[in-house]
């Protein structure tokens, strides 16, 4: 099996500027960074999102597990008020737009546009954190009131942790655009941070549904 | 760094580590065999505890307040001996509340021990002789933990039961004050 002769293939297609020179493959003309799945950062980010996604997913499973064994749900407190959660949903969905623009700008390596949109993203981030604060005040249950309170607080806590770290990331990336020289790799980082923001937005949809409607439906 | 400064840092580090070690050992020891064997067979409830017994008890309660095993044993006994019947998980019922910072007879270790051992007027029964001396100390340590007077590291966390109060480890160690009992109710006014 392993012993059969292996058909040799040309190691590079024409589109990629790695050229054969004698018995060597010259890669000096290759780009030193790439966007999306060409960059290692994208893979690291994907790993990160998988890890957190698994944690979120199981937290939601735990929610329904506990709901399933409960006689009444919520077993203490009331379902959270809808106002701030829904405001958050609107703002977070809205934040996808500047995020998209920032990602595009990073991919175009346009420093000024990157800065502009990162500022907008940061503003959205601050707004989201503020709304999140009010959300916690309107949960209508304490974490030690019962299993329902515990699971709601931890779900919200996990997402808030993500939210805050990514907002801080955005601040840092904005600041870093002022540290010269700006390597191309930094645009990749910004683009990937924007990719991660989509994850924060997308995870909010199921968590919003569970936290705000799990105790109503 | 000068050598003297380094020496001082070294001493501090050693002291810190030693302190952590002692604290950990005090907290974690499980002394299954208590220092004094146990209940006297002849009930001693009528006789007031001797000064020596109180001094010993104060010392032992002081030690047990830093020992998680002793406090948790006290907590178990608090339920087993039906202390909750009157004190209701520490919140107070027909007996006074134990979680607050108000003490009728004083909240120091010796007094709490004495209250449990000899009882008090208006309903607090005497436990000396009925239960081993060691358990009196454990109960006293636990009762103090209810008011946040025991070491927070060693104090119990929440129970696997209906939530009736914040866990002992969260109790606020406010300064205890002594309030004279009202004769009729045994409760502070």
């Amino acid at each position: 099996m392993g012993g059969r002769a292996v058909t040799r293939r040309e190691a590079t297609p024409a589109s990629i500027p790695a050229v054969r020179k004698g018995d060597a493959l010259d890669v000096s003309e290759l780009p030193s960074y790439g966007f999306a799945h060409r960059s290692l950062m994208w893979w690291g980010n994907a790993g990160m999102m998988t890890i957190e996604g698994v944690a979120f997913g199981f937290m939601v499973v735990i929610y329904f597990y506990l709901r399933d064994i409960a006689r009444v749900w919520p077993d203490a407190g009331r379902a959270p008020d809808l106002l701030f959660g829904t405001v958050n949903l609107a703002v977070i969905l809205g934040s996808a737009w500047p995020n998209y623009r920032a990602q595009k700008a990073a991919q175009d390596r346009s420093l000024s546009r990157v800065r502009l949109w990162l500022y907008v993203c940061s503003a959205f981030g601050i707004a989201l954190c503020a709304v999140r604060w009010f959300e916690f005040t309107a949960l209508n249950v304490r974490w030690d009131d019962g299993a329902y309170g515990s699971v709601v607080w931890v779900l919200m806590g996990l997402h808030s942790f993500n939210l805050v770290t990514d907002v801080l990331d955005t601040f840092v990336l904005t600041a870093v655009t002022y540290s010269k020289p700006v390597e191309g790799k930094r645009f990749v980082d910004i683009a990937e941070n924007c990719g991660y923001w989509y994850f924060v937005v997308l995870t909010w949809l199921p968590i919003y549904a569970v936290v705000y409607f799990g105790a109503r439906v | 760094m000068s050598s003297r400064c380094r020496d001082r840092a070294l001493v501090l580090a050693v002291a810190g580590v030693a302190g952590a070690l002692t604290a950990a050992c005090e907290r974690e020891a499980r002394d299954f065999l208590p220092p004094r064997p146990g209940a006297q067979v002849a009930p001693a409830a009528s006789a007031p505890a001797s000064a020596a017994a109180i001094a010993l008890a104060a010392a032992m309660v002081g030690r047990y307040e830093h020992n998680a095993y002793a406090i948790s044993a006290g907590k178990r006994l608090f339920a087993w001996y039906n202390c909750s019947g009157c004190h209701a998980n520490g919140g107070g019922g027909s007996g006074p509340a134990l979680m607050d910072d108000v003490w009728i007879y004083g909240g120091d270790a010796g007094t709490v021990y004495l209250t449990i051992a000899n009882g008090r007027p208006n309903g607090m029964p005497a436990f000396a002789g009925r239960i081993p001396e060691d358990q009196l100390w454990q109960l006293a340590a636990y009762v103090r933990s209810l008011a946040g007077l025991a070491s927070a590291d060693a104090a119990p966390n929440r129970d696997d039961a209906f939530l009736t109060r914040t866990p002992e480890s969260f109790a606020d160690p406010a300064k205890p004050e002594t309030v004279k009992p009202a004769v009729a109710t045994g409760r502070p006014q």
Partner: protein
Amino acid sequence: MDDARALPSRPRPRRRARKAQASDRRELLRDGAGAGSRAAVELERTWQDKPGVRGFLSANGHKTIGLRFVVTAFVFAGLAGVMGGLMRHQLATADSHLVGPDFYNQLFSMHGTTMMFLFAVPVMQGFALYIVPLMIGTRNTAFPRMSACAYWLYLFGGLLLFGAFATNTGPDAGWFAYVPLAGPQYGIGKRADFWNMLVTYSEAMGLMVAVDITTTILKLRAPGMTLRQMPLFVWASLVTSVMIIFAMPLVMLGANLVQFDRMLGTHFFNPAEGGDALLWQHLFWFFGHPEVYFIFIPALGFVSAIIPTFARRPMFGHDAIVLSLITTGFLSFGLWVHHMFATNLPELGKSFFTAMSFMIAIPTAMQIFCWIATIAAGRLVMRTPFLFVLGFFFILMIGGLTGIMLGSVPLDLQVHDTYFVVAHLHYVLLGGAVFPLFAALYYWFPKVTGKMLSERLGKWHFWLFFVGVNLTFFPLHVLGLEGMPRRIYTYGAETGWQTLNFVSAVGQVINDVGTLLFAINLIRTIFFTKERASADPWGAGTLEWSVASPPPKCNFFALPVVSSREPLWAPAAEVTHVQGLSAQIREGLTTTVIDALPDTRYAYPAPEIWPFVAALSVTVWLVWSIWSVPGFAWGLIPPALAFLLWYWPNKKEAIEEVEWEGEP
């Protein structure tokens, strides 16, 4: 190479911060076989760790980190082994009073926790960190600083656990830490908190390394190393890493939920307030069963790397083995309930898990048959690594077959939580992981140190260990059937369990002698052997054997181009290596995921102190949070700062990188 060392050193060119012009590029020093010795010297300098303590703490070469993982893991394993010996000694006689129940509970909890969290997983990940980049032809892993940080987290976590144990705060609720015994009411003191923290540490470590290894394998393979030509050990590492990414978050989450119950008074596991004690068992075993496979699958990779070398032929059924590895990875997520058959879960569901447990035997059987076929069709070189592989067959088979018995719901009801399980799990873990691990140690030792371990001592080690393991653990099957439960610190003489326990203790001593011989072998070879090993002492075919032993700092002076599974056995190819990467900054090549076509050049992160500082600050946070609830929040500030400083661009590096930059 020796010539290159003799050349006078040259200061590195300094440049101003601007995009390199085409004319400048010609002055930059690039690698490649034709680049000459100057490039080689420059490469070694570039890849050298910085000197001094700071350099030691900053190092992020995959060989350094991998080796640190392996050595640290073996130190922890030694300590846990001593605990195991103490337990066997305690149980050797009935009504023994060598240790009391409280200490015994800490002993077996520490033994299990250490072996699973601080030995088995880190040692396999350490091996992967060391071997994988060499095997796939790259200079470092994708995120070396993350792995460096992971190592420090691992070390601090381990030290913290052992520090806790030394101060009588060792976990005492078993390595599975079932609530309520480890919960807020019955897990008194800080013992369970330390266990929860350790789990957080070790899972964070495992996840970081797993992401690193996955990315490395997918994106940094040498040109031409398509997925189908990837060595089996690399496949095993890939499967393991992906499994870790899906399983470990769960136990990390679970341990934190227990910690919230203990610390904040939440009610996840409090049945009186709507929680459920069984929930923890689901969370733990959904991770806990795959955990066994995190240990077992890399070991299968070792075996698959070693057999072809000593059978002098490529592996029979390479593709089938890859498929088996992937299948095993998938199926291992469907087995967790077989640890919970004695609970009151629905019967029908349990039967499903029986079927799954039986099914996972098939891919493993497939691999065993392929290995035997390879041996049958090979020409055998009987060296110590191969002996350990043969021992692996014998012991793993027994462990696997008893595993099938345990997978059956009704039979499990009898033997669950008895010494039968203790026997089974030690057969599986020793046979399935430790024997291959020893094989791997003997096999790759010359690559790592440049010296060969003594064959004579190695064979003694093998036989003593083989006999010892069987003598220690076989009688335990019988004890389990005779009704001896696990985790008891003593038993009465009337139970009749003494004889077999005594035999087991004798086996343990033989085991210890074998291990001692191994230690002597290590010390003798490292400190007293002068003879150097060649680059490829076993005549193996994979890439790690193409470089000197020990490997150069940069691994490859010119990255290889690959066209077969065993490049060193294959006839000479037309294109043999890559040229044109920087010799002055740490540069490598990314390739496409499936076909391994050159994609971009990649500047590896340089060594930095920040991963160490970050790990330290995370430690501060976790320890603080054991003692104080506000500490749980405020303690986040130091790690946040550390990670910020870690990320903040280093001006000098940025300048260098810009000068090597090529736009996509």
